């Protein structure tokens, strides 16, 4: 219980999102290209964070189905931005696995010129401490 609470705290902290601001309009789900592949829908992310049920969230398919297209981030009228929440949940997992070892110096080596910009940015966000 305690650790769930802490994890929920961490998700709030990493994402900078206050899930209580959500007014349940569903615009995120309406806008999500991966909606159909998700078991937990974007508009539901907030409830999991509010209810501190992080276990279900990190074990969900949705966690890895999100494309980080940020359509929800862009369109959310309440500044809740589910995309950020899911990204924070991913970071949580990455950190738990102790894989946040990548330092900025190592990146040039790993760099593939074919990689889309978006992915790079996403990677930086994830590995930033």
């Amino acid at each position, binding site marked *: 219980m305690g650790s769930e609470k802490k994890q929920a705290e961490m998700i709030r902290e990493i994402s900078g999102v206050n899930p209580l601001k959500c007014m349940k309009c569903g615009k995120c*789900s309406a*806008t999500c290209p991966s909606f159909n592949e998700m078991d937990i829908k974007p508009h539901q992310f907030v409830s999991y964070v509010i209810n501190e049920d992080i276990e279900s969230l990190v074990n969900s398919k949705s966690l890895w189905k999100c494309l980080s297209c940020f359509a929800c981030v862009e369109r959310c*009228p309440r500044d809740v931005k589910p995309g950020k929440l899911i990204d924070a949940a991913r970071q949580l997992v990455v950190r738990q696995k102790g894989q946040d070892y990548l330092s900025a110096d190592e990146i040039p080596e790993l760099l593939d010129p074919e990689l889309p910009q978006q992915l790079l940015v996403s990677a930086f966000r994830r590995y930033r401490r």
Partner: protein
Amino acid sequence: MQRIGVFVCHCGSNIAATVDVAKVAEMALMEPGVVHAEDYQYMCSEAGQAKIAEAVHEKNLTGVVVCSCSPRMHEATFRKAAERAGLNPYMVEIANIREHCSWIHKDMEEATKKAVILMRAAVAKVNLNTPLKEGESRVTKRALVIGGGIAGIQTALDIADAGYEVDIVEKTPSIGGRMSQLDKTFPTLDCSACILTPKMVEAAAHEKITIYTYSEVEKVSGFVGEFTVDIRKKARHVDMDKCTGCGVCQEKCPSKKAPSEFNRGLNKRSAIYTPFAQAIPNVPVIDCDNCIKFKTGKCGICAKVCQAGAIDYEQQDEILTEKYGAIVVATGFDTINLEKYDEYAYSQSPDVITSLELERVMNAAGPTHGHLERLSDGKAPKEMVFIQCVGSRCSDDRGKSYCSKICCMYTAKHAMLIRDKYPDVNVTVFYIDVRTPGKNFDEFYRRAVEQYGVNYIKGQVGKVIPQPDGKLLVQASDLLDNQQILKEADMVVLATAIEPNPDVRKIATMLTASIDTNNFLTEAHAKLRPVESPTAGIFLSGVCQGPKDIPETVAQAGAAAVKAVGLLAKDKLMTNPCTAHADELLCNGCSTCENVCPYGAITYEEKEVNDHGIREVRRIANVNNALCQGCGACTVACPSGAMDLKGFSNRQIIAEVDAICR
């Protein structure tokens, strides 16, 4: 030195049960300036008040302290009693030994000790009190209403019916406002024009009402009871007195490319135009930006065809200066700019329209003569989608944080009207919440669902994608079914958020009326004074104060009128004597006080002062007592301590502090 009388009230047992009132009176006699002290059963009773009068006469009192209940309760009573005894009412102070002492403490010794200290503080203050006199100011018995929509018209009518003169200043060529653009009104489906036009006519015909259309307020000075207002009457280029309103000029005008403001730009109008058929006054104006005569010097057809000879290309703007006792702001609203809402494809497809545009489409005098059709190809739509809360309830910078309040109801109205007139058209409404508080409102909405089969889906639309075949693909979510929906529509209607008319900011500044972060004018008290601005003499009518529908607007318009009439009915205004004033020898003229004054009560004058033998002209703050409400913001902002507040002076408050800390 003052000669102070201290009167300690028992309030039956309310005070006396916990506070040793006799002891308080005894201790009072030890205080500097106190020449009389007594305690009595009920100070607020006739007999109690008589005791004050008696002591004032016998002991020649110059000040009175009553140790009793809260000053919010009986300060006025005791001040009046003192006044009747020949004392200045502001020489009375109350020590609150009931609410702040006897009622909250149980230990007699402790409560008595505290009561003594509260008494001392009051005595210390009275020692520094000076007699204050309420000021008087004149009232000009005429009101100005800014804005000629339903709010302005109703306010003007109500004030005029009470027997006072009213001027309406309207920016556009006709009164009528937003309501004139509406087709039907909820929840009864009255024809908007049918109920508005009679009011417009009544206002125009009323002998107490003067209407200045195509005019703007340019400058406001003065204060409650005596505002001086400059009104700019823009050049119409049509002589109001000569024009017969025959309409030939509009018909013959060769320039017909200007977007019609009245029809929200959905069709065109001529360069010389009246906004709509029922316009009041029924006198056209020439839109110089689109007029060939004004642009090239050639043309002049309207002048040629006008049999009345009313066209006057040389006409200039005119400035009128009028005096008013009260000003009512009724500047109304507009819909927000949808530039930032790309996802709804408003700028990409002519078939995505705002609700206000739909009003024009549905209206017989509108661009489609009342036929529901797609603006792109004129085809009748089969699938209509309504999107709610576009730009409302947003916490980002794209929209507005508030609920626009009217959208749920007008969308139900639109859906119902469409289903009624075109039963083969499917109507889907995507909503977040349906909000229908109001008389017969929820019934109305349910009727749309139950009787007319409007499909309501809970879930916001994420995106509207125009298809190559002209259809609109609506991507939304159904939160209750936990589904993502892709729906093809022929027309999409956006329930666009409303915002205060952008000009209101300028007007608020002129009036020194305060405005909130959303540009709504602030009311003096959210609950108890909802139609008054904190600035005395300024009243609020309609949506300029906050989103509201027509019945609410009319109700508020009436309320604003009553408040204005209440002011105009007075011959003189008594002003609060506890106002700020600047010590001219200490004032730096630095303008700091001016910057914090919420009432614009402080101005500066170049004045010659004699500062201990040094004569010089200095810039000195001058407080207008009629405007000052006595908040004291300036007194603290003032770096030199030149600004002080009568009745709550620095030295008085410090004396209280000292007495308490003794």
